[in-house]
């Protein structure tokens, strides 16, 4: 219904109302009272316009507020009560004034005129509000736009009101009655469907039941009182049309609130079920929204227990979360942690007794420690929380004072616990992905450290060709190799493998590099370097960590190689198409810090021959796996080395790496792969030691 006149703002409407009121007052004061039709017409028109202006003003005002049906009903009640009081007073106090001039006293004297005017205006205002409130109640929760019905009714209200002008002539009285009866019929039709009643909660329905009967009685008594004393009916004398409008609204109120009373009465028994359904729907809506949002675990369990206790009408709810092999109470809602822990442990002890694949009810009567509970929980429910078929914990709710759970609660909790499991799983996955991301960042750092530690290029000696291959694993394995050009004739090399992976391995590797770098400058034998390195590492290495290493010196002048091994893979000497695994005894660095380490550490010296090949490697090669989880193995490794021993160092290492890559192509690389190949190419003259010393003493760099 578009009563709205958008051009006028609220205060303009109010101003219109005020102006009309003043005009009306002036008219009442100065125009002589008369039964003439013209006088009554002008009078009624002015009153009608004032009412209309006030209604338009109120309409805007009401729309500014959020409408709550119970408030509207309450306001109608208040205004009805005001009218009730006014009419009661009009009959007692104002009657005294009326005796002066029995019939038309209101038209004499300013004071009494003012009193009557005020009286009528309060009723006018109240009626306007009640009318508007009915209109709001009517349009509440209506699915279709059925304002036409209401508008038709309003038209008949106006017609019925103004037809009172015709009552002077009794011939035309039937017109007034017809309009009046049609109005009542329309009121009945429009009052039958009160749909908003279903949407209020049980408590409000109870209040409404009480209110509606009182208001219905007030309306009826107002009607009776108003029509009962015609002589002193001030309203009728003020404006017959307004009086008729009053009667119509009174009938509307009586009918509407009677129907409302019975509708509410019939709704009360089902109110609880309706409330719960509404609660479930809102909870599930809220929860499905929650699933899509990622939440902190603590916030999430709190929300879950909050909703769980609502949908099951429980007094308390909490989650027993599986952690470190036990159950821990989290997200306690309306229950102390002591109580929650007691009941949780009771459930944990007896979980085999119950079929905990779905929500079960457990009576606390069997709970031996029931007396220790702070509050008298008598019945609980336990619902499993699962993710990927794995039990993550239980959702528990409890009722106090012997209240029982019913099947409705069970169904609600069954559905809800499924939602809860998904949400918890989501939050866990989110946390995992954060950890994974952080881990990857860490690994980036570790790779960077490793890349900077390893030599960027190989030393270049005439007569010694060097080839190195390093393939880092995703997790960074802790492999390390290095070369040291000690002096013109001495070349040092080291290969090491730090236990463990990732950033911790990378830092130990950095330390190991520092140690070997400095020791290589001062100590002249591999054995002593390793002994000293072990001593230094004692200060920093965790007991669980250790470093396997092999250290060697090649004496370019005397063509010898000096090797010590501390727990590392054997050093392969490839000579004359055969393999010799050099395994001088030695314990890994960091495994033992007593004399035992140095006592068991051996050092071997080998004279180099032409085309001797020294192979250093880490277990990333021999333990490279194929998809059947078989190792590449040292046999295959040695076979490839022998087959390619006549090639130069780079070709050999390329061949080895190609084979390892082919072998393990269907399996992710688990550990770093390091391969260092040194090939001795210096031709020796049979009796030419002196000659060699004299002729090729120059550094071959």
């Amino acid at each position, binding site marked *: 219904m578009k009563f709205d006149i958008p051009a006028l703002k609220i205060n303009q409407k109010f101003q219109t109302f005020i102006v009309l009121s003043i005009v009306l007052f002036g008219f009442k004061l100065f125009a002589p009272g008369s039964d003439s039709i013209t006088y009554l017409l002008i009078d009624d028109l002015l009153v009608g316009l004032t009412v209309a202006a006030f209604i338009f003003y109120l309409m805007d005002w009401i729309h500014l507020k959020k409408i709550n049906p119970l408030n509207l009903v309450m306001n109608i009640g208040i205004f009805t009560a005001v009218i009730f009081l006014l009419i009661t007073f009009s009959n007692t106090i104002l009657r005294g004034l009326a005796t002066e001039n029995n019939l038309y006293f209101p038209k004499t004297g300013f004071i009494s005129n003012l009193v009557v005017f005020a009286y009528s205006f309060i009723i006018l205002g109240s009626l306007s509000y009640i009318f508007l409130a009915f209109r709001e109640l009517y349009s509440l929760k209506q699915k279709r736009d059925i304002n036409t019905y209401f508008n038709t009714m309003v038209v008949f209200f106006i017609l019925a009101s103004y037809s009172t002008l015709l009552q002077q002539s009794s011939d035309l009285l039937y017109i007034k009655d017809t309009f009046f009866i049609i109005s009542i019929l329309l009121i009945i039709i429009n009052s039958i469907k009160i749909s908003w009643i279903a949407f209020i909660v049980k408590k409000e329905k109870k209040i409404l039941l009480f209110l509606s009967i009182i208001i219905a009685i007030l309306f009826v008594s107002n009607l009776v009182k108003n029509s009962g004393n015609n002589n002193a009916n001030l309203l009728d004398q003020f404006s017959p049309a307004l009086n008729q409008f009053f009667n119509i609204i009174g009938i509307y109120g009586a009918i509407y609130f009677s129907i409302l009373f019975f509708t509410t009465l019939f709704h009360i028994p089902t109110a609880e079920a309706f409330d719960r359904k509404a609660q479930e729907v809102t909870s599930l809506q809220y929860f499905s929204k929650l699933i899509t949002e990622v939440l902190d675990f603590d916030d999430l369990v709190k929300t879950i227990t909050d909703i769980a206790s609502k949908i099951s009408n429980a007094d308390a709810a909490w989650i027993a979360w599986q952690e470190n092999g036990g159950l821990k109470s989290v997200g306690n809602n309306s229950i102390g942690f002591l109580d929650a822990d007691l009941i949780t442990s009771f459930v944990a002890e007896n979980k085999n007794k119950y079929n905990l694949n779905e929500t079960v009810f457990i009576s606390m009567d069997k709970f031996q420690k029931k007396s220790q509970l702070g509050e008298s929980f008598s019945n609980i429910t336990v619902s499993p929380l699962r993710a990927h078929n794995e039990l993550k914990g239980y959702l528990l709710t409890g009722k106090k004072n012997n209240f029982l759970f019913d099947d409705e609660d069970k169904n609600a909790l069954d559905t809800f616990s499924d939602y809860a499991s998904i949400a918890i799983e989501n939050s866990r996955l989110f946390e995992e992905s954060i950890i994974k991301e952080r881990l990857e960042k860490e690994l980036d750092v570790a790779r960077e450290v490793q890349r900077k530690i390893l030599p960027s290029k190989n030393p270049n000696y005439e007569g010694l060709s060097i080839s190195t291959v390093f393939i880092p694993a995703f997790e960074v394995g802790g492999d390390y190799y290095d070369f040291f050009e000690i002096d013109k004739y001495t070349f040092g090399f080291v290969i090491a493998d730090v236990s463990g992976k990732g950033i911790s391995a990378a830092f130990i590797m950095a330390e190991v590099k520092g140690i070997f770098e400095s020791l290589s400058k001062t100590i002249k034998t591999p054995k002593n370097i390793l002994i000293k390195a072990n001593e230094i590492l004692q200060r920093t290495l965790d007991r669980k960590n250790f470093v396997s290493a092999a250290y060697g010196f090649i004496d370019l002048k005397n063509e010898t190689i000096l090797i010590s091994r501390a727990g590392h893979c054997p050093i392969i000497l490839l000579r004359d198409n055969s393999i010799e695994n050099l395994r001088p005894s030695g314990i890994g660095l960091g495994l*033992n810090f007593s004399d035992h380490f140095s006592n068991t550490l051996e050092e071997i010296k080998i004279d180099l021959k032409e085309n001797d090949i020294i192979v250093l490697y880490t277990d990333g090669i021999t333990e490279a796996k194929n998809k059947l989880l078989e190792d590449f193995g040292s046999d295959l490794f040695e076979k490839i080395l022998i087959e390619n021993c006549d090639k130069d160092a780079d070709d050999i290492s390329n061949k080895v790496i190609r084979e390892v890559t082919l072998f393990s192509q269907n399996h992710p690389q688990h550990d770093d792969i390091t391969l260092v190949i040194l090939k001795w190419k210096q031709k020796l003259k049979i009796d030419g030691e002196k000659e060699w010393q004299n002729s090729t003493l120059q550094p071959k760099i």
Partner: protein
Amino acid sequence: MAEFNASTKDLGEVSVIYLQGYLDAHTAPSLENTFSNLIEKGKYCTVVNFTELAYISSAGLGVFMAFIEKMRENNGDIKLSSMSDKVYNIFDLLGFPLLYEIYKTEDEAVNKFIESKNLEK
């Protein structure tokens, strides 16, 4: 993911830990728990049976290093037994035979404990 399992058998003074599957950085904490539990109970004489162990990584080796000292301080030891050649080779390369007593069979290792206990008495 490769599986790993460690179970303990109580032979009175001596406890035997049976290892199964793949012992690496991911499964090492499980074996650490097993050792911690033994120490809590005051069981310091331990034989580790490797018959069923398929693979051990450097992190797996670290577990033994972490507990050996504690065991020895309390007059006990960790003795290793029944390793496959492949597993033995890994221990051997690192020099474990110089640090640990490694036996061919579990019985040998257990008897060694009992002998040394008898000697003390």
